């Protein structure tokens, strides 16, 4: 096996990572590139490492990760972007919300390897002290947090949420699902229901989002 065989992240086809390659099994004949480092052939329970590239906040980051690594752990533990938070690790709280390929998702319920080549935006990529994103600035102005743990997820989620509204994606709050949605307080609340705030800062959160959306909440 050739360790220097780079895996082209733009190749969406015929990638196999795993023990079969070492074994020279069907998969090796069927597919091309080699795994970065495969498990020992006689231990089916050994970790499997893959190489992948994430485009995080505009910069390509090459990583060699255990296949089990979630996108959340790749960001936090491997790229040290700790703005994205781990609340529940089970899709139930929204603290891990990032924008992947233009869509907000729960980074805890996605594998990093499934995002090879994807464009990921985290809270660090939205803005930083000195050049805050308008949503970050609004959260500060409205004191839209107490402990702040849910805040990065709330902000990433709300930025993507306003884009979803702009694109006309409907929500459960709309009376007529066929009609184009409008930004109303009820719409904003329903659309932010995937982000839980343990401190209950909801009223200020909705005020901050409402200000950016141009809605009185």
């Amino acid at each position, binding site marked *: 096996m050739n360790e220097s065989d780079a895996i082209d992240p733009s190749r*969406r086809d015929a*990638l196999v990572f795993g023990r079969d390659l070492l074994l020279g099994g069907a998969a090796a004949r069927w597919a091309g590139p080699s795994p970065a480092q495969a498990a020992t052939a006689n231990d089916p329970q050994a970790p499997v490492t893959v190489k992948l590239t994430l485009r995080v906040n505009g910069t390509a980051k090459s990583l060699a990760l255990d296949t089990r690594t979630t996108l959340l752990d790749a960001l936090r533990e491997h790229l040290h972007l700790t703005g994205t938070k781990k609340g529940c690790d089970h899709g139930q709280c929204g603290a891990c919300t990032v924008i992947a390929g233009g869509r907000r998702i729960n980074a805890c319920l996605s594998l990093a390897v499934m995002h090879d080549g994807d464009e990921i935006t985290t809270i660090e990529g939205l803005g930083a002290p000195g050049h805050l994103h308008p949503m970050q600035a609004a959260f500060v102005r409205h004191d839209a947090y107490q402990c702040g743990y849910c805040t990065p997820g709330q902000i990433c989620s709300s930025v993507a949420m306003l884009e979803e509204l702009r694109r006309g994606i*409907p929500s459960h709050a709309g009376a007529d699902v066929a009609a184009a949605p409008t930004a109303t307080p009820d719409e904003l609340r329903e659309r932010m229901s*995937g982000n839980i705030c343990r401190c209950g800062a909801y009223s200020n959160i909705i005020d901050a989002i409402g200000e950016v959306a141009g809605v009185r909440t």
Partner: protein
Amino acid sequence: MKPFTYERATSTAQAAARAASVPGAKFVAGGTNLLDLMKIEIETPAHLIDVNGLDLAKIEPTPDGGLRVGALVRNTDLAADARVRRDYPVLARALLAGASPQLRNRATTAGNLLQRTRCPYFYDPDQPCNKREPGSGCAALAGYRRMHAIVGTSDACIAAHPSDMAVAMRVLDAQVETIRADGTTRSLPLADLHRLPGSTPHLETTLDAGELVTAVVLPPPPGGVHVYRKVRDRASYAFALVSVALVRQADGSGRVALGGVAPKPWRSEEAERALASDPQAVVDGLLKDARTSPDNAFKLTLARRTLDAAIADARSSR
């Protein structure tokens, strides 16, 4: 999480063949259910076949005026499709009543149909569960079962199917298209996809080993007024206690399916013939074999009232 090898599927036929031949292989689509279960080692695939690269993300008209929804169409995109919103609003509404926007952005059509139960004992490896570990017993039968099913259950398992989308697809008479490991394709009614638990609750669908869902086909629009009414413990981001998918025609006749009460979307074409004359008879028919406990007997009343409320919604929206 147990270690696993990983590959990207390159064609539907190849994916199905690989899934049947590689020991411990499983498909992953959005991953929002499978990964959740892998973290607590209730699912322990040795090999993941990532189907996301397959060309199954389109929504296309069928020759007879229906719609073919690719297995990889995200829940958000299906709910946002103009044809679905206009012609099958019960489906758009059911999708939007499920999970959260973040989850719907990842969750796929096939993954949603094949998501596993939310029975809390199934999620707890320290509890006996016939679905997780055949023959170990059912902790829910002696436990707290407020969320559990009341019809279609067995002495081995009383788990409910959690999908909202599937309830709407059932009321729309959807067909599921698949490809099998030998490359043959078939189409089966959604009604036949999920099994009742009987004595084998670990067998949840009628799919063969390696069989890949490629699409869900909606027959031509049924017309009428569409309602999806979901009752849950909080206003959003919670599973259904009871839900009603209703397609009601101007003369009061129509179709009804219930969610939250059974191991699969629950519909009776025979019972719903009474819809125009006696809506409560529809619920009587649907729930005639119900077996409840003090924890979940409220679902009998809730189902009646939710159907009433759905009919009132349908009346007022004309």
